[in-house]
């Protein structure tokens, strides 16, 4: 670690920066003040809560794997080759990042729903996506994928291609170059991208409730459970929110650790 002398920032900038941090921290603290600590253990271990948390973890994990399977190749194509329409593809891939999740849900519905673009053909093959856990995973993958692609493409662009070029002159086929040089080089970015995708999948709500519905054990993930509990049992909703905050905080600290270069 080399220490570079740090340039002074103008002191006034601390005021808006502090206000900004406060704006993020205060609501979380406010939620803490409302937690019913005595009943917390019971609330977060209720069957509904446990089922929802398990479902969330399971679907988010699978969604993250899907993000890796499809997102890594997309990032490589965007970051390592040039082709017509690349800019268009880049924008399209990033679209779910800025779309309201409910719009994502509607879009998925009109694609994979029973009356959707592909729904009919899928149904002919006996595949029914509506109201299934698969639908939850698809909604999560849809909204989480850009996080992986953005993080990895950035790393690929900044790392340059010189190692890959050397590998090619050493006789390595493109697949070998990818496997032994490119991927090991950007592994930290893959890891942090995957963790961010996981976090996004875990928090996914709008697309899920629109596309997959809400049924305990099948499609009711933790955010949906929180939303439902909010109607009837605010204490339980706050307790579950705390669980989600803790899991998200863990995931982010993990991402920061893996993103740090070795």
């Amino acid at each position, binding site marked *: 670690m080399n220490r570079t002398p740090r340039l002074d920032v103008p002191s006034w900038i601390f005021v808006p920066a502090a206000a900004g941090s406060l704006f993020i921290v205060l609501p979380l603290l406010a939620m803490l003040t409302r937690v019913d600590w005595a009943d917390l253990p019971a609330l977060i271990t209720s069957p509904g809560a446990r089922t929802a948390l398990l479902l969330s973890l399971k679907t988010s994990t699978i969604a993250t794997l899907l993000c890796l399977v499809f997102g890594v190749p997309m990032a490589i194509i965007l970051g390592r080759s040039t082709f017509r329409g690349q800019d268009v593809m880049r924008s399209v891939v990033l679209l779910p990042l800025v779309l309201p999740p409910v719009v994502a849900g509607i879009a998925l519905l009109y694609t994979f729903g029973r009356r959707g673009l592909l729904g009919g053909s899928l149904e002919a093959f006996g595949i029914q996506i509506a109201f299934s856990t698969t639908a939850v995973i698809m909604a999560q993958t849809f909204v989480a994928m850009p996080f992986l692609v953005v993080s990895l493409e950035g790393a690929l662009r900044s790392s340059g291609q010189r190692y890959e*070029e*050397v*590998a*090619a002159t*050493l006789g390595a086929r*493109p697949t070998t170059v990818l496997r032994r040089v490119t991927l090991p080089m950007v592994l930290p970015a893959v890891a942090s991208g995957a963790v961010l995708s996981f976090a996004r999948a875990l928090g996914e709500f709008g697309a899920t409730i629109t596309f997959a519905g809400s049924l305990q054990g099948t499609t009711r993930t933790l955010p949906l459970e929180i939303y439902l509990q909010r109607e009837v049992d605010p204490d339980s909703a706050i307790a579950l929110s705390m669980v989600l905050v803790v899991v998200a905080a863990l995931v982010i600290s993990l991402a920061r650790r893996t993103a740090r270069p070795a």
Partner: protein
Amino acid sequence: MSLTFRAAVKDRDLDVSLEVPHGRTLGLIGANGSGKSSVLAVLAGLVRADSGTAVLDGEELFSARVWVPPHRRRIGLLAQDSLLFPRMSVVDNVAFGPRSQGLSRPAARAVAQHWLIEVDAADLADRKPSELSGGQQQRVALARALATQPHLLLLDEPLSATDVGMAAMMRQTLRRVLAGRTAVIVTHHVLDAVLLCDRVAVLEAGRVVETGRTEEVFRRPRSDFAASISGLNMVRGVATGPDSLVATDGTVIHGEPDMALTPGDPALAVFRPEAVSVHRSAPGGSPRNQFLGPVTSIEPQAHLVRIQVGDLGADITADSVARLAIDVGESVVLVIKAAEVSLYHG
């Protein structure tokens, strides 16, 4: 079995033809940005030429119809930076090529060990690249390039990342491994060119301006760049007699021609700065070669002082400088004996 190469790359303003006989080493010299590294990139297949063709050992590497991708060219590249794969050990770096060619892990490691011994780096086998000095890294990178048994080896300033003490050792290693190999070396050090290259080609602005046997090019340069890195003064002109020429500014220079010059032909006069003496006014005895002009710079040059007068340099002792008491802007007379001037057809 040799390399013939001709390529033009429009957006790099490159248009170069080269030939390297089998087992010979060609030096590519030229100023920064003259296109040396681009030639290597085109040869290695990392940059596509807009037109041209290259044939290595009778096999087309590229042409209007043919394109062999880099990994099937059997051309090894040693870049300025060693570019060792940071996550692999030294031996795995060297074994990378043989592995990629389909060798088993143990076999590839055995090949790697062999080449590490060859470059005197066997003791580094288990280290990580980050634990090596610049010179050691370059040595390992050389072993890695050699381990694929390339038909052509490309070296891009292989000694630039090596400190002075290590450079001598590395130069010896290169001399040894380059013997009998077809290779192209980019360099701007005379010493590297003289010790490692059979022939050199001088590039200027993406064109070959001079090519020839190494000692010939440095002894009797025809390009400004070759003259300058040889440390020689060079004057272009037109022959006025068998042993004289007139420079473009009208100065007449007498010297020793290799062969008698034909009046009216282009000719070059070349002489060492150490052979030039500096005077405050024209000396007696009317020497045949003298140049009058203001001093443009005074700089230390090895153990001497370089007095620059326009394009010409004179290396004199510090003592002489003091005695002459000259300063920049003052007029001096440079004198050079005719016996010290080489004249040849340009």
